[in-house]
């Protein structure tokens, strides 16, 4: 256990990614408190380039881009977090509990996973999003979670199958422990590395999916996310050519890229730390 943290701290990649992410988390949580109302349209200041008053300029509605960006970072991370946490929970539940109990429970959970894998869930999501009104961020996060867990459940299942054969599980049973307690206290801690990896991937993917969907105009909610900013930057320009208002779409674009890169780098760092130990032939 100690070894795991120590190794993690040794991985420059993981540390680098984490630091970048923390910066954005701060920007997204503390930032909005300082920047004023991102929706406030200042009709005298429409489509202005960066200046001292508006460090990233204003949108063509006269809204402050930096204020929007801070809110967008927070909201996008929120979607990612909701999807990441929930998706991980579902994956752990389906991937760990069924196989631990074994027999019919395992077959059912395996079947559900495989079905979910072959169902075209993303298109389904697009349809839901375009039909249902009043989607909020949490709901979107939930839908993304529900569509993204199957592959994770599968890899957790294979971990579970090896771990549950370990003798310490039998020893716990022989101390009179019940199944749920054994899964939670004996088995899951040993899968932490894997679960962390799943969480990182699910969160990163959810942020990307949400942005991609809002950018093409599906799932547009009145809440500002990075994808939302990109969508409006493309569609509502008072100036004839969109590149004339570069300060509106370049910041969210860069931020999105950097956040995703951070997730990718954390994932690579985790992989580097845990994989050589997990499979060595």
């Amino acid at each position, binding site marked *: 256990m*100690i*070894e795991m943290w*120590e*190794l993690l701290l*040794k991985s420059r990649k993981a540390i680098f990614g984490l630091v970048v992410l923390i910066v954005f988390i701060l920007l997204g949580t503390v930032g909005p408190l300082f920047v004023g109302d991102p929706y406030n349209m200042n009709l005298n200041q429409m489509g202005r380039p960066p200046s001292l008053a508006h460090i990233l300029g204003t949108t063509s509605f006269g809204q402050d881009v930096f204020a929007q960006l801070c809110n967008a970072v927070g909201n996008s991370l929120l979607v990612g977090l909701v999807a990441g946490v929930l998706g991980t929970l579902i994956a752990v539940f389906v991937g760990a509990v069924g196989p631990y109990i074994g027999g019919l429970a395992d077959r059912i959970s395996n079947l559900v996973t495989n079905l979910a894998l072959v169902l075209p869930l993303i298109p389904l999501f697009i349809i839901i999003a375009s039909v249902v009104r009043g989607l909020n961020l949490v709901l979107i996060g939930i839908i993304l979670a529900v569509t993204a867990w199957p592959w994770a459940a*599968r890899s957790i*299942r*294979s971990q579970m*199958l*090896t771990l549950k054969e370990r003798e310490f599980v039998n020893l716990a049973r022989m101390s009179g422990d019940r199944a749920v307690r054994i899964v939670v206290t004996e088995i899951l801690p040993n899968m932490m590395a894997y679960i962390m990896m799943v969480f990182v991937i699910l969160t990163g993917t959810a942020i990307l999916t949400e942005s991609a969907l809002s950018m093409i105009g599906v799932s547009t909610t009145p809440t500002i996310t990075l994808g939302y900013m990109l969508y409006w930057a493309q569609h509502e320009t008072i100036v004839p050519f969109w590149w004339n208002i570069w300060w509106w779409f370049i910041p969210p674009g860069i931020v999105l890229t950097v956040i995703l890169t951070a997730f990718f780098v954390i994932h690579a760092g985790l992989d580097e*730390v845990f994989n*050589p*130990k997990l*499979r*060595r*032939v």
Partner: protein
Amino acid sequence: MTEHILEVEDLRGYYRGVFGVVRAIDGVSFNLDRGTIMGIAGESGGGKSTLAQLVSGSPPPLLHREGGRILVDGIDIYNIDPEELRTEVKCKRMSYVPQASMESLNPVKRIRDFIFDVVGQRTGRRVRSKERKAEILEMAANHVKTLGLNSSVLDLYPHELSGGMKQRVVIAISTLWNPKLLVIDEPTSALDVTSQKRMIKALLKLKRAGIIESMLYISHDLTSLRQCCARSMVMYAGKVVEIGSMDETINDPLHPYSQLLGAAIASYDPKGRRQDTLQSIPGSPPDLRNPPSGCRFHPRCPYAMDICKTTDPPMFTVGNGSRQAACWLLKSKAGE
């Protein structure tokens, strides 16, 4: 071309971590001749697996080589770039099968698909085309057959195989590229006598079929080492205590530790049950974070003398030069 397939010179390998510095390999030197099988015996925690991991060229994260050289087929494996190590040494010249490696088979993949993954990883190129798959399967089937398994095991999942079968499958995969040297850690320890016998036969067959040339065979089980190794090396607490031919080490051990190790084995006697109590070596192996001064065996050695507590015994050469042991008792016998 040197006459040795493996040369290890004054090797040191330490684990560094929050627990301190574990001197798991501390000044180990030996050579392995081409075409020879050498057995490495010793107590649990004595550094056998650590040595194998160092020889493999990719020690695990906390293990560091802190000195010494390892030459595999004349190539200094810690002095070439990683890419060359991967392409020139690993697979072609040397293959390493770790302890408990049968657990590394992917439980949710058929053996054949797992092999494609391994080949993909090793060559840096994923195996996709039908022809390449067929080619790899043919190689694998050939090795699997040499090891005494039916080639249909390639279509099975790991949980459908017994421990001994999984172990042999892993060996087949590791020797896919016909390495000159096979470093194998405890291949028989988890197996029963009948499977042990099969495994040892399989390994010997691998050598006879020319798939491998030499082998470093690690086991704490002297009895099974005895069945297939020509040379032997006994390790204690991170050091080599005795090197010699297997026969001599068993029948006439030089070092007190080797003697006690032989006496602690409960062997089967067809004539009836033994009446005396088995001897176990008193005390426990030293904490390698803080090894004893002088001879590392002195706290447990029945013959310990004053010099043993202060000065580390060098390797004394005995007889015609093929036997060496590190014990002060041999100072007078050694031709110095």
